């Protein structure tokens, strides 16, 4: 009865060779891709490669229920990333995990204490009077398209390689133009940071002009040094920027870089800090009812109001650009509004904000730096030596575990174990190659729990073969010859494998979604190997079994094939009795192995 074949099993059964070839080619292609990509070992996690891993958890502030959201987390990540990479390391990773965690991984070789300080503390935010402003680079950057983020938080990376860093005189600077609406009390109005519609040549100002602010009388030598530093500074060079901001004390006159609204760098000489971030009570992005434009409202604390009144009364009498104060975050000028009148308790910053940039500035002002406050949850520092040792131990343990599994399989399944071992091998190669490729692709890093997951997965993978083999042996016990046994065993084994692997995968997926950090690495490996298990069993083990079932060694039930009907206890007259010998509930036999 040549019944119609079922579609899904058609391929594997009728063309096992083709399926085998397919997976082998895929394997070779993946391996080739791995060598081509130049990454031949999986990227190691911080706990294996050595380094520092810091887990930060966002604290929800009272009254700010919705502060912990995706946008704020992303802002925080980019700020922290800027800070840790400002240490001169390019391989630091900052990423969100879960809804309220940020993981900072800093590879070995970094100044760990400094990194911790940079990451853990909220940024320094100061209000400094502006002394001089100049364009950061002589030529407009090729990539100087107006950037949406306004404050240059996440864009500095993109543009810093844009120019080769020629130093020289600035050709133009945006000139602040005090707006007419600056009449009502309690409002600092500016468009210095945003409007660059009327650039006026001011190169002479930066080159020769040496306006000494009355607030900070500096010795001439220091001033000259500062001036030279200012002249030499190239804001488009990332290293120069981090150098210039390093170690600047709030009470010093400082040189700093900042971006204007069109994403172009400008450099500043700034007076000593007059007001710091702690003086700001809160800041909010709102829409000005009169002009309909986005503005940022600031409220100061008691002491902050006084200080702010002092600085604004002084600044409002100055000429541009010295009527500006710069909002300096971690050494970078975030914004430099000009002041037209004395302000006290609260202030409004206006300019050509859009909602995003107003929100960003407000966040910077109210949280110091990060849009959220963070708590250090855990800090792990691992030297490369110990990480290597742990990896070593893990690998030894894995190898021994694998060896035990191999011995067990060989003893129990004899010839069949060859198929199991080949499948395990294919599975291992695929796992390794995919893990390696996932390093550069999605940033997967092999950490210790992931190694553990991979070792545990040996058991899961081996289980699929056991299910399949036991099914085949059951069929043989019922008196069938090998080839039909394989084909009959497969559909049922297939279902069992799929059902149980699904449960396993579900566990891994849930674990991956809800957990953080170390646990995720484990869950990911477990999920990956479960998927690979299905792939290998379907595309490799089954076709291989089909092919080998035609070989005399297996088909004739050689004693060493693991499929010897006699050893399996098959009995000739058993078609009718396969389910029904003896009493239905067999005699109690306590040696149930």
């Amino acid at each position, binding site marked *: *009865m*040549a*019944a119609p074949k*079922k579609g899904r099993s058609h391929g594997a*059964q009728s063309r096992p060779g083709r399926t085998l070839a397919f997976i082998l080619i895929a394997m070779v292609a993946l391996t080739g891709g791995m060598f081509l990509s130049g990454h031949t070992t999986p990227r190691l996690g911080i706990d294996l490669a050595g380094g520092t891993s810091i*887990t930060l958890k966002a604290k929800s502030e009272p009254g700010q229920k919705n502060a912990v959201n995706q946008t704020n987390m992303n802002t925080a990540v980019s700020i922290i990333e800027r800070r840790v990479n400002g240490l001169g390391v390019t391989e630091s990773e900052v990423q969100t995990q879960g809804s309220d965690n940020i993981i900072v991984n800093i590879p070995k070789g970094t100044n760990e204490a400094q990194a911790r300080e940079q990451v*853990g503390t909220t940024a320094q935010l100061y209000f400094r009077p502006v002394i001089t402003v100049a364009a950061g680079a002589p030529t407009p950057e090729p990539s100087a398209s107006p950037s949406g983020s306004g404050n240059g938080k996440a864009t500095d990376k993109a543009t810093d390689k844009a120019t080769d860093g020629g130093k020289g005189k600035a050709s133009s600077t945006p000139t602040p133009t005090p707006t007419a609406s600056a009449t009502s009390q309690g409002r600092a109005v500016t468009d210095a940071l945003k409007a660059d519609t009327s650039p006026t040549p001011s190169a002479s100002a930066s080159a020769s002009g040496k306006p000494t602010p009355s607030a900070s009388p500096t010795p001439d030598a220091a001033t000259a040094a500062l001036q030279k530093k200012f002249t030499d500074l190239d804001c488009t060079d990332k290293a120069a920027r981090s150098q210039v901001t390093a170690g600047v004390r709030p009470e010093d006159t400082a040189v700093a870089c900042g971006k204007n609204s069109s994403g172009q760098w400008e450099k500043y000489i700034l007076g000593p800090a007059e007001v710091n971030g702690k003086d700001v009570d809160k800041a909010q992005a709102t829409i000005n009812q009169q002009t309909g434009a986005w503005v940022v409202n600031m409220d100061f604390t008691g002491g902050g109001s006084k200080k702010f009144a002092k600085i604004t009364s002084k600044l409002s009498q100055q000429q541009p650009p010295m009527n500006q104060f710069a909002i300096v975050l971690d050494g970078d000028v975030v914004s430099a509004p000009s002041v037209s009148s004395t302000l006290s308790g609260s202030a409004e910053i206006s300019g050509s904000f859009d909602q995003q940039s107003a929100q960003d500035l407000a966040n910077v002002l109210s949280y110091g730096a990060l849009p959220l406050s963070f708590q*250090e949850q*855990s*800090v792990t*520092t691992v030297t490369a030596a110990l990480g290597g040792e742990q990896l070593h*131990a893990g690998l*030894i*343990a*894995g190898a021994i575990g*694998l060896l*035990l*599994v191999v011995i*067990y399989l060989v003893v*129990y399944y*004899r010839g069949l174990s060859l198929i199991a071992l080949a499948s395990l091998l294919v599975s291992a190669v695929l796992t390794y190659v995919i893990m390696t490729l996932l390093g550069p692709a999605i940033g997967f890093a092999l950490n*210790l729990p992931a*190694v553990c997951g991979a070792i*545990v997965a040996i*058991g*899961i993978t*081996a289980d699929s073969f056991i299910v399949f083999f*036991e099914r085949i042996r059951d069929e043989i016990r019922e*008196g*069938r*010859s090998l*080839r039909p046994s394989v*084909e009959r065993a497969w*559909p*049922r084994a297939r279902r*069992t494998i799929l059902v149980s*692997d699904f*449960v*396993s995968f*579900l*566990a891994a997926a*849930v*674990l991956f979604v809800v957990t953080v950090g170390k646990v995720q690495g*484990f869950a990911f490996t*477990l999920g990956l190997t479960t998927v690979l298990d299905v792939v290998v069993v379907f595309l490799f083990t089954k076709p291989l079994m089909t092919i080998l079932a035609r070989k005399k060694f297996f088909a004739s039930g050689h004693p060493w094939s693991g499929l010897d*009907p006699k*050893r*399996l*206890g098959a009995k000739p007259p058993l*078609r*009718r009795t396969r*389910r*029904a010998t*003896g*009493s*239905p*509930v067999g005699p*109690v*036999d306590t040696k*149930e192995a």
Partner: protein
Amino acid sequence: MSKLGHLGARLIRGEVGYDFIGKRKIWYGISILITITAIVGLAVRGLNMGIEFEGGAVFTTPKTSVSAGSAERSAEAASGHDAIVQELGTGGLRIQISGVDTAKSDQIKTELAKDLNVPEAKINADLVGPSWGETIANKAWTGLIVFMILVVIYLAIAFEWRMAIAALVALIHDITITVGIYALVGFEVTTGTVIGLLTILGYSLYDTVVVFDSLKEGTKDITKQTRYTYSEIANRSINGTLVRSINTTVVALLPVAGLLFIGGGFLGAGMLNDISLSLFVGLAAGAYSSIFIATPLVADLKERDPQIKALKKRVLAKRAAAAAKGESAEAPATQGEGDDFDDDLSDDDEGAAVVGPRHQPASRNRGRGRPSGKRR
């Protein structure tokens, strides 16, 4: 091997077997006893929560000549808190100090480096705030509950609600046992333990699902036959998959044991050890519960179903009648049971009438493949 192979064959055919279902009350009792012990242990002794849950610092030093005792004294002097010092297989020390905040750790690290005469850069520090463990634990609970809900839904769809419930009970049983053992033995609960515990979820169910799969297959058309009761078929399912269960568990436990004894022993306490310890305990519990708890529970629940109840009555009545006639229980297999064996086969079975018309007893004796000389 061949003995086990023979045994396997006899188990499949039901010639031998352990009456798991019939003796279920004993095993329920044992499980309840274990569970109570676990709960009492948990209540009395509590869990030995690791540094992740208390907050503190763990320093791992390279090989040092300083003894654990003097290291403990210097650690306590440096921190002002109690310190636990363990020697590692590598000759280094693991110094655990609770109640240290992250700011103070740098200072302790510097002092330790001086006292132990090792370079500061070689000391690994693992610092955790007290809320970190709580976060992990909360996430673990969330994960546990989400997973349980999803798996119950899945099992209820793929199998039936009774199996879903039984699997859930078995799962809770496994977790209770594992946690209880942790409480009783006093193993430290760390993040690694939580990971291991969560993995048991998948593994325990994996095992259960394989048995259920066989049970589902065996009982597909159960109401169309009158030979066996549900419990009897369930028992055969367990026995039939027993060899597989043992093999699977052995194969799963071997690498974990490797991790636990070799990886852990080599490094002393560490994440590898923590994960593998809870996995080891949980895997063993999972294998036990799928055989002794989950399947008997399904049978128990199923026997309450009116249809199955009626079936049991019919079966018993038939047996009584057969006994009266002196007939053996070897009566031809009934149709329903035979069919389920063939129904999802692909049909290239050497052209034999595998999927013959149903209810045709002749197909039972088709003797396909014989006499082929392929078997003795």
